[in-house]
Each structure stands twice: as structure tokens, then as C-alpha cells.
């Protein structure tokens, strides 16, 4: 099996969802009225659009995540060669984690991890 066969699995997802939705369109009943297509808001008339500004806290966590996730991707190749490299790899990961943890502590101290 080759990795080109991944296309098959992509298509399986498309076929399953697409097929079911098309089938459902044919068999399902259809009726329209004014209130039905309103977004749900506890039964009261909708006040305004939902595309609004929201808490900046989510954005801060996303930024910190971006840094750490790139680091995780870098560490994976290290994990594979760790056993063969021995002492060199161990010292390198200590240096790497020292820098990483310093970054985490800085963010922590600055209050980026505090929910507002």
C-alpha cells in the first residue's frame, strides 16, 4: 500500500457525507416559515449578527500555542534518534527545554495564562 492511497480515504469521507446529504435531500419533507430559518436564541427574536468581537483571552492562548506546537514538531525527529545519539542528544534537549521553559515562565509571569 502506498501513501498515494490516502486520496482514497479522502474520497471515502466525501462520498459518505455527500451521499447521505443528497439522499436526505430527496427523502426529507420541506416546509418553510418565517421563524424556522432564524438562528436559535432561546425563542426570542434574534437581536443582531453573531459575528462579533469576543474575549481576547482565546487569541492569547492561540499565540502561545503556536510557539509550543512548532517546538513539538521539532522534538519528534529528536525522539527518533535519541537512542543512537546518546549523551549529545540528551544535553541538546536540556538546552532546548531550558529555552522553551523560559518562554513559558515569561508568558506566565506576564499574565498571558491568566483568564480574564
Amino acid at each position: 500500500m502506498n501513501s498515494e492511497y490516502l486520496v482514497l480515504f479522502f474520497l471515502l469521507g466525501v462520498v459518505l457525507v455527500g451521499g447521505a446529504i443528497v439522499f436526505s435531500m430527496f427523502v426529507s419533507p420541506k416546509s418553510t416559515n418565517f421563524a424556522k430559518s432564524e438562528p436559535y436564541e432561546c425563542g426570542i427574536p434574534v437581536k443582531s449578527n453573531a459575528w462579533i468581537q469576543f474575549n481576547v483571552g482565546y487569541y492569547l492562548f492561540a499565540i502561545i500555542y503556536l510557539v509550543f506546537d512548532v517546538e513539538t514538531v521539532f522534538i519528534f525527529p529528536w525522539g527518533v534518534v535519541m537512542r543512537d545519539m546518546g549523551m549529545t542528544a540528551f544535553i541538546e534537549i536540556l538546552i532546548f527545554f531550558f529555552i522553551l521553559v523560559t518562554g513559558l515562565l515569561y508568558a506566565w509571569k506576564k499574565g498571558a495564562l491568566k483568564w480574564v
Partner: protein
Amino acid sequence: MDFNIYDFTSFTKWVDNALNSSMSPLLAIIIELIIIGLVFLLFYAIVGLLLVYAERKVCAVIQNRYGPNRVGPFGIFQTIADLIKLLMKELINIKHADNFLFNLAPFIVIIASFMAIAALPFAKGLQAIDFNIGIFYLFAVSSLGVIGILLAGWSSNSKYSLIGAIRSGAQVISYELSVGLSLLAIVVFAGTMQLSGIIESQADGWWIIKGHFPALVAFVIFLIASTAETNRGPFDLAEAESELTAGFHTEYSGIKFAFFFLAEYMNMFIVASIAATMFLGGWMPFHIAGWDGMNAIMDYVPPIVWFFGKTIFVILMMMWFKWTFPRLRIDQLLNLEWKYLLPLNLMNIVLVAFIVLMGWYIK
């Protein structure tokens, strides 16, 4: 034909040869693709339906209720009846919604879970694609589903959906770090990212036993983080029904809603089988060195039974979490990840590296 329940390599080779000898190579490949596609489609649907039923029964047992018991014996056809009902329901279009993204979102969540299933090793020789970066690929693909959730929440133009989706985004990306780092512990032990290689390295003992303390810590962290990554209780803030109605899929109806539901259960299956493969030895039987009699009995159980047994064990544990712990608040959730699990995980990786360096694990 030599069908062997313990090793599927010869069986798949036999099918391949039989098809290639009787028709042109192109046609053979097309027929193979169709067979694999149908098998996986059927497998996906059956596992999804069974998990939904299992969840309702387990929940009922934990809460001292009966659960579904009307459709068929012990209610086993309940989920099929639900599926037919959902297929017959009207697909409602929401006013002012972003229609393209609204319809795209179910595709993304389902495709992400299909791509992940492609790399799972069910038994020896029974793995669709054996990447040399297998676990890294799984880690990458299984987190793609959150894009579907974010799109679903944002595009439906409802305040509940938006809040649910943004929460889910923050939660999933945060816990992804812990998932990755806890899997890294096993990658360091095994020295490879290929899933078949990781399983072969557990032939004489599972990593959770061979890797003793750090592997156990990594396993516990993985369980917590993967429960959060699949948006399941006690971390189901994305669809906290007491505050957000249904979270990101509030506006979805009929079969589109069913796909979000199905994807959630398939993601649970995927993370449970990753846990089984990495920590609990995949399809390798349980062996104790020296106990030849017991090892022989364990060898007698087919690998596919071992794999599904371990996966079901992890799934039942995740269901047990969901129905016994109260839901966390968003700030508690993010604190748990960034202030406890992440530093613990980094320390654990250093410990793993040290133990591998000194050779202090059971070889």
C-alpha cells in the same frame, strides 16, 4: 489460499496476486481500491453505530437506568432507528449564515477521522497505510477536525455556536501539546515513528510495563489530554448543553448533525486505538518472560481480538470519565493544561531521555 487469523500479510498478498493474474494491473488496482473503500466504509459505520449504543448503555448502567431497550433485543437496533430518523429529517438553511462554510464543516470533520483510520494497525498485515512517520501523521490528522468545528460554529451565525466553537478551538489546540508530548515519550523509547515498528518493539512487553514510571505518567497524561481533544466530558465545553444549548452544532439539523455526532465517536475510537497501540502493545499479546505456559495461551488469542479488547478498555474508561466527573470551567480547563500538564510533560520527557540514556528500562 492460506488464510491465517494471526498474520494477514499472506492473505492480502494472495488477494493482490489473484487480482493481478486474472486482469490488467490498472483494473486490479481499481478493484482493490473499491474493496478497501467498501470495507472501511462499512467498518466506520458499524463502529460508529455500536459506540453510540455503547455510550447510551454505559451511561444508563452508571446512572442506574435501563437505557435503550425497546427496538430489538436489549435495544441494539436503537441507533439504526435513530439514523433512519435523522436521514428523514429536513435540512434547514439558516438565514444570514455563510452557506458554503456551513455545508463544508461536516465534510471536514468526517474526512479528518477517515484519514486517521487509514493509518491504524488492526492486526499484523491489516493496516491500510504503514507510514514511516505513522504516529506523527496520526497526531497531525486527528487534530484537523477542529477546523470543521470552528467553521461550523462561526458560519451558523448563532451566538451559542460561536462561543462553543471558539472554546473548542482554544481547548483542542491547548491539549494537542500534551497529546504530542506524551506520545513522544514512547517514540523516544521505541526509537521509531512507524506504527508497525513501535508494535514490534513491544513483542516482549508493552511499553507501559517496560517503560515503568515515565510511561505510566505519559499514559495518564495522554488519557486526560485525548479526552479533552475529542471534546468529551468532563471537557465538553464546546457543547455544554446547560449553558450553550448544543454548542457548535446548535443550528445543524438532520443528517448534518448526525455527522458531527458520528465524528465525535469515531475520534474517541481513534484516540483509544492510538493509546492501545502506543502504550498497551497494539495487537501484541500479553507476555510475561519465563511463563511459557501462559505465554502460549496468550498467543492463541488472535491479534485482532487483542487490539479491539485494548481499544474497548480505553473507550470504556473514557466513558466512565464522562459520566462521573462534573464539567470544568474554561479557565480551569486552560489552567490544567498550561500550568500542570505541560510542565509535567516536559519534565517527563527529560526523565524518559535520561532513562533511555542510562538504559534503566526493561529491555
